[in-house]
């Protein structure tokens, strides 16, 4: 049974602080390769940069049948920025990568490029703004990343929020929880793999710009089952007027979120029921993610080849796709516990009947 202690928290800290905007995942990939190489039968980096790490089953099925091939993914990339052109004086025009709300960019510090050069998305001090200015959203093409006079970067370099990992007891405050917490979870699963299945772990690229890495990874691995391990935003703040919150998505502290449906996938109902039953049997807290929008790597996996039964399970966190997220250690522990328990019980019988 894999556990989360100081070593795992240290690893999450390294992963969270690394810069890996979609399309430039090298820094996280390096950490992943270092961690998984000693654990796996084969480790491969594919053409798009996915890490495909395979740990074969220790035991055979009765009758010598091939073990169930279970693909797990967590995406290495994060949302961020790409520098487009220099305006002179160390000021750079930039684009966003992945879903970012422009209203929260102003005044944020960033780290630019592979060398983590400090920069800031500048904001005018309040005494130099008018009341009208302060009511307006600032358009992206009027924002700049400021590296300071003499600061140099090349168009095409990426930037991330400069947030550094912090922990306070059971609470984690950091950037890129989405999806470094999934990456860290899958590394732990590779350390304590269920004996009866082939564990095919894809640490994917380019999830935030359209599930691109998972698409080719699923084609290559050709699994029997696909599970995306990700993080999902909690919209669980108490209502000021005492009204019931009917649009919460998930709640922090209530355990891993099992998906039924999101914008990318109608999860396989057999897998939904199976993991929910596993949680109940093992007394692991869990919740259903409120059906709705959003998407995970499962959206690409289930459509690969002739179709792959797929599911998503996420660690809940507040303030996703912003400079800092807030997650709870117990939710992470319970997510790892549920995945481990589910994979240990998973047999071909779960998927033997038709999808229903």
């Amino acid at each position, binding site marked *: 049974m894999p556990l989360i202690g100081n070593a795992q928290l240290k690893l999450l800290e390294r992963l969270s602080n690394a810069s890996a905007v979609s399309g430039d995942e090298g820094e996280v990939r390096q950490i992943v390769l270092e961690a998984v190489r000693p654990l796996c039968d084969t480790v491969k980096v594919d053409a798009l940069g996915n890490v495909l790490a395979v740990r074969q089953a220790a035991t055979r099925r009765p009758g010598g049948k091939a073990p169930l091939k279970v693909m797990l993914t967590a995406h290495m990339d994060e949302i961020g920025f790409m520098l487009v052109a220099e305006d002179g004086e160390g000021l750079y025009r930039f684009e966003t990568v992945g879903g970012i709300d422009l209203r929260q960019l102003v005044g944020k510090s960033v780290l630019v490029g592979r060398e983590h050069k400090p920069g800031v998305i500048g904001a005018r001090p309040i005494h130099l703004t008018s009341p009208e200015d302060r009511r307006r959203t600032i358009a992206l093409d009027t924002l700049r990343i400021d590296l300071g006079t003499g600061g140099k970067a090349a168009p095409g370099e990426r930037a991330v929020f400069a947030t550094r990992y912090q922990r306070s007891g059971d609470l984690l405050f950091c950037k890129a929880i989405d999806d470094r917490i999934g990456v860290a979870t899958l590394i732990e699963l590779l350390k304590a793999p269920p004996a009866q299945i082939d564990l095919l772990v894809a640490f994917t690229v380019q999830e935030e710009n359209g599930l691109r890495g998972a698409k080719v990874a699923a084609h290559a691995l050709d699994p029997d089952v696909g599970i995306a391990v990700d993080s999902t935003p909690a919209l669980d703040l108490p209502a000021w007027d005492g009204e019931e919150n009917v*649009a919460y998505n998930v709640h922090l502290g209530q355990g891993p979120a099992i998906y039924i449906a999101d914008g990318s996938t*109608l999860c396989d109902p057999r897998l939904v029921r199976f993991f929910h039953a596993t949680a109940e049997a093992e007394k692991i807290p869990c919740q259903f993610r409120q059906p709705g929008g959003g998407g995970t790597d499962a959206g690409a996996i289930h459509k690969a080849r002739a179709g792959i039964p797929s599911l998503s399970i996420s660690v809940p966190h507040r303030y996703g796709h912003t400079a800092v997220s807030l997650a709870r250690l117990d939710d992470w522990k319970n997510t790892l516990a549920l995945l481990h328990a589910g994979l240990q019980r998973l047999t071909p019988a779960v998927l033997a009947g038709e999808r229903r």
Partner: protein
Amino acid sequence: MKPLIQKLTETFSPSGYENAIRAVIRAEIEPLVDELRVDALGNLIARKGTKTAGGKRIMLAAHMDEIGLMATHIDENGFIRFTGIGGIRPTALNGSRVRFVSGVPGVIGTDRITDPTKAPTLEQCFIDVGAASRKDCPVKVGDVCGFERPFLDLKKRLVAKSMDDRIACAVLIETLRQVKQSPHELYFVFTTQEEVGVRGASTSAFGIDPDLGLAVDVTATGDTPRCLKMEVALGKGPAVKVKDAGMLADPRVVAWMIRSAEKAGIPCQREVLEGGTTDARAIQLTRSGVPVGCLSIPCRYVHTPSEMVDHDDVLNAVKLLKALLSKAVTL
């Protein structure tokens, strides 16, 4: 075909939860086909015949899913908040009746709408199944429902919920009954999850690896008062799609379909649809690419609980498919 159409349209199977309609269709076609299987996404795949000289492996796709709603939250008083499955039109929601796949019926109400000129958003709507509390509510988060509306026979015109795309399921079933001789290996595929992004067609097409693909689906019309101008009208025959928002039909397939209709004296119309797409898009982009076309059944009020088709268009669609499939194809 009317009893079959009624049976198909009165079954509730929103995208992703197609087992009820799959069972209905399977019972209809099992005696007619050489091989029947269900793939990982729940597509029902029926093969009839094998390839002979001049024959092709042809995939025909009609989607068996329908748009619907999924419960997202049950509040403390037993009201159900929901999200849409597929392209839900909020203007058609208020006062609609729904039926959950479990059989539980309900009605849709809305929060107080302060601006009566605006349609409610999905977030302002809820389903009332007559429960008095969360505990009392027979619906759980994740349960799905379709729109409740009985089949209506207006003689020349037929009205039902989920004509999109059960009418094409009926057309494929009837074609399967009538095609006796064919040089082709025919795959009749009743696909899943079309309404959420042609997902079932993409996996079933990969599995079948066809030489030619034909989707059968409904299309909008331009024959109602003050509608968006469009050439297609009810009663002028099935429509041969030239393009929609997601697909450019293979011109050779379009020509073959029109030529065959003319030769057989079957009325048909050319269709250019500016929004939406069909399973043909997914088939076209499978593997290394597949020549595709789409035969459309003109349909008014698509994605409302009262979708209307013309009975003759339906019969002519069967005739045209039969003509298309009975002879060798040279594109």
